[in-house]
């Protein structure tokens, strides 16, 4: 009996027989008729690969959790060595705020710049921004799917999934063809937490999938960090609750790097030249101005000049804009 057969059977309809005998019998029949070589060939034709739990290439961190999957299906360009590199899971709410999106993105960007692999679940909201931030910094990111390895779920992230595959990896414990189902996502979360050295919760409601990931990480003795949020916002309750329970607060990427024992890159990137429009605008944002009009008023620039300077800062990754509101 191979691990591949186990994974295939686990995802098949026969798994859900009600009585024990029947399931055992079905499994025996399934294994008897299972052709490993043919199945691997079919996977390879689809552009997917497979690592069994007993193989040397299987991620050691994932193997260490108490219920690792029998193996994982992979899609993407990154070599298996990606699992050896330091990795951090960045997870959070699907319905995130602009603030949460901004934090997830810039945090992932800085983590990627420090050579860390960012792991997340390809979901909407925080997950998506974590992947994007990592890609923007030229880093590699791993997306763990809660469905078959061939699916891009949610469909809105199909383009993102393609981009992730070009440099990073998509991982699933389910073979091609398996539809996403609500109960597969908590199971997916254990792989997210398992692959990572530490888990960062950016924004989460009181009962959130991200908290499941954090719990799983805690159970495995991995570091859990949380980004503090507004105490009045329902979106921050989960993350703030974690902090109350003793999670490490994240105020910058260095906090995360420190938690996994990596020296943060010391060379501060060069700021804009003093006295340039960009520097003046940056100072204006620090002083609390957030729209082009406010920045123009605070700095004495025309709205056109301010907008131009903001674009330069945006291209350098120093500010970010959402709905016309600029943030550092």
């Amino acid at each position, binding site marked *: 009996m191979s691990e591949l057969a186990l994974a295939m059977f686990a995802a098949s309809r026969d798994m859900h027989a009600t009585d024990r005998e029947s399931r055992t019998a079905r499994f025996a029949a399934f294994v008897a008729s299972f052709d490993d070589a043919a199945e691997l060939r079919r996977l390879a034709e689809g552009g997917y690969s497979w690592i069994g739990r007993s193989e040397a290439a299987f991620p050691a961190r994932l193997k260490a959790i108490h219920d690792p999957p029998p193996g994982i299906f992979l899609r993407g360009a990154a070599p298996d060595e990606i699992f050896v590199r330091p990795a951090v899971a960045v997870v959070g709410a699907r319905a995130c705020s602009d603030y949460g999106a901004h934090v997830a993105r810039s945090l992932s960007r800085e983590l990627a710049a420090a050579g860390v692999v960012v792991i997340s679940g390809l979901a909407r909201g925080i997950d998506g921004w974590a992947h994007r931030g990592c890609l923007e910094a030229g880093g590699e990111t791993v997306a763990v799917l809660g469905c078959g390895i061939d699916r891009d779920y949610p469909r809105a992230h199909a383009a993102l999934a393609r981009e992730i595959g070009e440099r990073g990896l998509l991982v699933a414990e389910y073979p091609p063809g398996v539809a996403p189902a609500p109960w597969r996502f908590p199971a997916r979360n254990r792989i997210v937490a398992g692959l990572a050295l530490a888990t960062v919760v950016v924004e989460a409601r009181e009962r959130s999938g991200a908290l499941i990931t954090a719990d799983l990480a805690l159970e495995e003795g991995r570091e859990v960090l949380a980004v503090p949020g507004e105490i009045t916002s329902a979106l921050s309750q989960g993350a703030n609750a974690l902090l109350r329970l003793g999670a490490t607060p994240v105020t910058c990427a260095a906090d995360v790097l420190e938690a996994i024992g990596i020296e943060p890159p010391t060379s501060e990137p060069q700021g804009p030249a003093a006295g340039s429009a960009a520097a003046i605008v940056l100072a204006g944002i620090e002083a609390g101005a957030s729209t082009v009009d406010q920045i123009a008023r605070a700095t004495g620039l*025309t709205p056109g000049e301010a*907008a131009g300077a903001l674009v330069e800062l945006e291209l350098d990754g120093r500010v970010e804009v959402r709905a016309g509101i600029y943030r550092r």
Partner: protein
Amino acid sequence: MIARAVTHALVGLEPRRVEVEAHVELGAPKFAIVGLADRACQEAKERVRSGIESAELDWPGNRIIVNLAPADLRKEGPGFDLPIALALIAASGQIPIGCLAGHSAVGELALDGRLRPVPGSLVAAEGARRNGSHRLVCAAESGPEVALAGIEPIPVRHLSEAVAYFRGHGDPPAPAAASSADRSPVPPDLADVRGQERARRVLEIAAAGGHNLLLAGPPGIGKTMLARRLPGILPTLDDSAALEVTRIHSIAGVLDPGAGLIRTPPFRAPHHTASAAAIVGGGSNPRPGEATLAHRGVLLLDEMPEFARNVLEALRQPLEDGVIAIARVGGRCTFPAKFQLVGTMNLCPCGGRGDAAAGCSCSPQALDRYRDRLSRALLDRFDLVVALPRPRAAELAGAPSEGSPAVRDRVLIARTAIVMRSKMSPEGEELLGRAVERLPLSGRGRAKVARVSRTIAALAGAQSIAAEHVAEALSYRSPAELGR
């Protein structure tokens, strides 16, 4: 006896010569109109009869046939009343039979013989001039409109005045002075807008470059107010454009009688419940829609995502080609529709996005659905897309803002500068390349930024397009919130 009068029917925007032949002969009393006359035109019988009797003329109580030639052209509307009446009066010998030569006529009759103006008098007048008529008999109100076409109007208030003119009693009533002055209402002034400096800036750029503009932001921040002020900072229409616009508005019947040539760029703001036919034009005998009425002016789609999808998609052809081609079983026609499109929308269905105080409570799915209402192809037609967050109250309490005339002066100067097509500087090229690399910016997006930066350079009076112009243009690209 047979008598002929000449008038013009409208086919799309074009006048077609129609001969009205009246034949009065002995026989049992009868009155028939033949030649594909529609309902309103058939009903001319009652109006003409009553009108002729009210003018104290004799109703020829014999067999009367009126033929509208060419017989295969559909005739619509009440504008045939006057030519029918004149042909009848001539055929019954009450005015000299040859006196209608060289004249054309258009107008609706009231039961008491008074004349009413009809839509499209300007086009009928142009047709009359082209077909060799020297004078056009029309309702008094239509006089100035007819004069714009370069033909002498015979404006009459009553059928009896027209008869007096043809009998040679009394000179033709003095035509009202052909007014080419614009008496259309003055568009609202930009001085009314407090704060919103970025929005004012982008409005100026839109006016200078003729760019389509999409304003997105929470409700109540003045998006519509700003959009309504765009016509006031656009250059006035030159003679041929003014005539073209006036002609279209005349046909649609929205021309203010006596308003003269329309010099201010038209502004149309259809409601979001409008049908595709109402926007792009339609009907079995196609009539111009809002897009054509906005020709050489501004078409505002307020709350753009609320418009029906097929309406928005129908606008893509005119946005690309500047014309609308309508094909019907009865034939096809082309309406001009070169307008500047201004759209407004919220950033999310609840409207809270971009509003620091309210915050947004929309689910990601609801957001996606909202964005999907605008197709990528349509979004690509907007050179300028600006997210306007809600300003703080203090920002609105500033000094009075600059008025429209000052802005329009700058726009006029920039328009002449744009024609010279300034070159992109190496620094600008480098910045544009960097932006394409860093931002989600497509090839089409790049071309849009290049266009807008040319306009910005022209407004700045610069010889070449510098990096700062490109940088500002980049700030008006579609924000990520509207992308997919």
